[in-house]
């Protein structure tokens, strides 16, 4: 391997070096500083005689005399089933003091796109045990469903609750162990404290042994963050499509990832897009998110729950905006609900699961699932609207019908959504609570529900009273 001492420019995370041989785009580079450090980097631009290198570990300590050598290959992730239970840093090196990783295979971290023809449409219901998700925004295997949150909100608790409780009831009921479940946790730029919370929870619940953890912390170099999710997803794809695991990938925090992209873009003096983020951010994010899915004829699946904190709780900010256009829905964690003490503070109105319709209903979950969800959406939305009005005219000025909707909205939050981070609710239970709430409205108001289902599930006080009297 030829070494060069030809660095001409160092700018932020970028190093420019002169070369006299052709260097491949995206290739890995090693830079040895005079202090004896080895830093790794990647080719961002390659032209005749000059390359731009993006350095993962930061450019501190690199000078004109540092030597640059090219590995001749793109960044690869060593993958093996033994990764389960391991904790790695943001570049894939073990940091748990365990043995070296003996790879089965080394995979290119820039995953190839799944051929749409080879995909299998996701329609297997995952029960998360969270009513606001199972009942209203159902998650299915192979989906990518981000959590849109804000600073200081309990998105991590929600993610952990999902990771802890997620099951596929059908397979359990059938006594079929099916494929095994694994969690890949990719942390990008989170604080040590947050990291500790995650690790404690993983260890407490014994989840660690079926997890692979990638940790890029807040004080790790930002550029490293751009590879962390790719390493995580490459591992996920290997476990899912080669080893048949059902993999749940939690990526947090995507906002830090995007900041890193912006930093590199600025250092390269690229023409910026919205709010200084690079114009290719959509493509870049899509290359991560689209690595969720199922493949025909393979047992495993990759389900993604990326977490992002919206700067200023603004969902029109480029990061949540572009994410929403790629992912199959989103779950909103809401500041107002959080301050009311609702756990988890999920605001179902702007939340959405695009793959819900095909994953629920008779034979999949329960025949009334879709209608109940739609009706609760409509009723809760109406109640929400009326709250504004109540502030102006007061409750007395409203009709009885309106008052019922107001009550419905209140009870929906306190009984349906607020369940606590430690409570695991079955889907049946969630739907039954839904019927309890809907039954406070007259049956004629339930125009989204099939008449037969109203007949079957509506909890009529009078009939109950009669039944009790008998």
């Amino acid at each position, binding site marked *: 391997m030829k070494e060069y001492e030809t660095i001409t420019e160092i700018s932020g995370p970028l190093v420019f070096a002169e070369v006299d041989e*052709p*260097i*491949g*785009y*995206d*290739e890995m580079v090693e830079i040895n500083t005079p202090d004896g450090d080895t830093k790794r980097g990647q080719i961002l631009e*390659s*032209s*005749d005689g000059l390359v731009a290198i993006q350095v993962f570990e930061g450019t501190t300590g690199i000078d004109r005399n540092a030597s640059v050598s090219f590995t001749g290959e793109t960044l690869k992730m060593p993958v093996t089933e033994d990764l389960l239970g391991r904790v790695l840093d943001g570049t894939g090196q073990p940091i748990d003091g365990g043995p070296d990783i003996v790879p089965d295979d080394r995979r*290119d971290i820039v*995953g*190839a*796109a799944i*051929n*749409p*023809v*080879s*995909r*299998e*449409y996701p329609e297997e219901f995952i029960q998360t045990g969270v009513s606001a998700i199972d009942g209203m925004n159902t998650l299915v295997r192979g*989906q990518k469903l981000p959590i849109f949150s804000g600073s200081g909100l309990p998105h991590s608790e929600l993610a952990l609750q999902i990771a802890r409780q997620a099951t596929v009831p059908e397979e359990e009921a059938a006594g079929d162990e099916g494929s095994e479940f694994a969690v890949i946790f990719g942390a990008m730029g989170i604080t040590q404290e947050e990291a500790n919370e995650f690790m404690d929870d993983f260890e407490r619940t014994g989840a660690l042994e079926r997890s692979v953890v990638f940790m890029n912390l807040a004080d790790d170099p930002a550029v490293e963050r751009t590879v962390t999710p790719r390493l995580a997803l490459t591992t996920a794809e290997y476990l899912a*499509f080669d080893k048949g695991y059902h993999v749940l990938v939690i990526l947090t925090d995507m906002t830090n990832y995007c900041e890193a992209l912006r930093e590199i873009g600025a250092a390269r003096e*690229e*023409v*910026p*897009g*919205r709010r200084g983020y690079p*114009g*290719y951010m*959509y*493509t870049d994010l*899509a290359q991560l998110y*689209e690595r969720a*899915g199922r*493949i025909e004829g393979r047992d495993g699946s990759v389900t993604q729950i990326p977490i992002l904190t919206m700067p200023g709780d603004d969902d*029109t900010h480029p990061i949540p*905006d572009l994410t*929403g256009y*790629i992912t*199959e*829905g*989103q779950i909103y964690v809401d500041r107002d609900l959080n301050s009311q003490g609702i756990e988890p503070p999920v605001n179902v109105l*702007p939340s959405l699961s*695009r*793959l819900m319709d*095909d994953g629920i209903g008779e034979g999949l979950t329960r025949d009334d699932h879709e209608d109940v969800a*739609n009706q609760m*959406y*409509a009723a809760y*939305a109406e109640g929400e609207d009326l709250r*504004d*009005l109540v502030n102006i*005219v007061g409750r007395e*000025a*409203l*009709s009885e019908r*309106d008052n019922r909707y107001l009550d419905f909205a209140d009870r929906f939050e306190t009984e349906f959504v607020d369940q606590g981070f430690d409570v695991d609710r079955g889907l049946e239970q969630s739907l039954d609570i839904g019927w309890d709430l809907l039954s406070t409205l007259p049956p*004629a108001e339930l*125009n*989204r529900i099939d008449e037969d289902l109203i007949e079957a599930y509506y909890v009529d006080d009078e009939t109950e009273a009669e039944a009790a009297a008998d």
Partner: protein
Amino acid sequence: MSKATQETVEESGGQIASVSGPVVTANGLDARMNDVVYVGDEGLMGEVIEIEGDVTTVQVYEETSGVSPGEPVRNTGEPLTVDLGPGMMDAIYDGVQRPLDVLEEKLGSAFLDRGVDAPGIDLDEEWEFTPTVEAGDHVEAGDVVGTVPETVTIEHKVLVPDSPPGSAGGEVVAVEEGTLTVTDPIVELDTGEELTMHQEWPVREARPTVEKRSPSEPLVSGQRILDGLFPIAKGGTAAIPGPFGSGKTVTQHQLAKWADADIVIYVGCGERGNEMTEVIEDFPELEDPTTGNALMDRTCLIANTSNMPVAARESCVYTGITIAEYYRDMGYDVALMADSTSRWAEAMREISSRLEEMPGEEGYPAYLAARLSQFYERAGLFDNLNGTEGTVSVIGAVSPPGGDFSEPVTQNTLRIVKTFWALDADLAERRHFPSINWNESYSLYRDQLDPWFEEEVSDDWPSRRQWAIDTLDEEAELQEIVQLVGKDALPDDQQLTLEVARYLREAYLQQDAFNPTDTYCSPQKTFRILGAIRTFADEAFDALEAGVPVDEIADIDAAPRLNRIGVQEEWDEYIDELEADIEAELREHY
């Protein structure tokens, strides 16, 4: 370039000078603007997008990891073209017309690797060719020389290719017939030229026609709010802008499923992989409402998902519209759905920024408006060269960042298209689907299309629609007051208007795309549902005038049944009965 005739690749000795993402520059390459080139040792497909001095800039349609300077670049000497011929219906392509199922087979993997190519139509498949010309006939470019049953639904007409590279036409001297492949000669002309079923066309160039005319027939979509309030013409253009989660894709899918076009080209441009898979799985099972055959028989899918190379995203809308024009030339009504044109615009922006071009608004290139209008202008009702009449309707989804319609792609699109279906996140949040905002949307085709609806459905079509629009407008005004003072503070007649408008929203404007019956609503049914609501309104106001309190009117048992008409299969009888019940029940009160 033609994937069917690859042997024409010249070794013109270019060399890669630099690589940056999808943009590669080469030295010493003798190429014209927009020529297709093969880049690197792996032969990645690309297109020339800039020439400056000795340096040629190429956008590469595949991932460029590991490609290094010094590797060869070879020119094909031809612009980006598509293969045209039988076999395109029921196919699924990527953005440069490589059939995805063939790629899966060739690669033996579920992942799309690079450097693999395949012709857009199967060169070995045999077709039953029936000539429609005989020796001695004179044919010219665009003329039909024979037919092939491409699918159960579609009779493929074989056309004399136009220039470029084209045929000058001539006298037919020999005609073949029977089972042939697309490369077998079918007709021989006196000029010595042999015609085959296969031809090529450069995607960035519109196929020639005689004349573009004003459309007069609606593209019936089976969606009440579209057909009823904001219709699009066959040969018209429409934009569906909306923030994420507002139902763009479901609306596009509904149109692809139920629109009464002969051919549907569905371009998934930079969208979700799972969504394309849904289309691939659903369409073969769905029935075409007009012919009863599988929907897939009239559909061609172009899938360039968001994680596939960005340059191919830029080209996929052109690939789509060129295929659309080819079927139009056979005299068919073609509908093209592009989901989403914003991704296409962003692909332009990405490439432009890598070229370090001077950016226009929000970083988009200055030529954004020109590219958009060139694309939409390829839609229309045309007199074809061969005397037939065909249409291309274009329906483009737009994904404005943050749902803000003032951004460049939405604004530039609105300047061109004549139908605007504004999707609304608020409506979607309360699960009002399709969440098309009736106050913001418009169709400039309404007057043009009224005669058709009057003829085919009823003379009252325009007046009844106007009544619905007026009622909804009035509701919007009243709602503002209600927000301040509450509903009960309104006079009785206005409260009743709100009640009527509520049924318009719930029974007429809302439509359940996932209900097997409600998903498609014929214009006749659309008209009668509106009629039933009108009946309720008229009877209710009569009752109010006769002194019946508004609460009692609103509470009649029959009224909520309006909301169930959509899901009735026997809607005609159901509506007859319902109208009679409404009348009877209300008249009991006075």
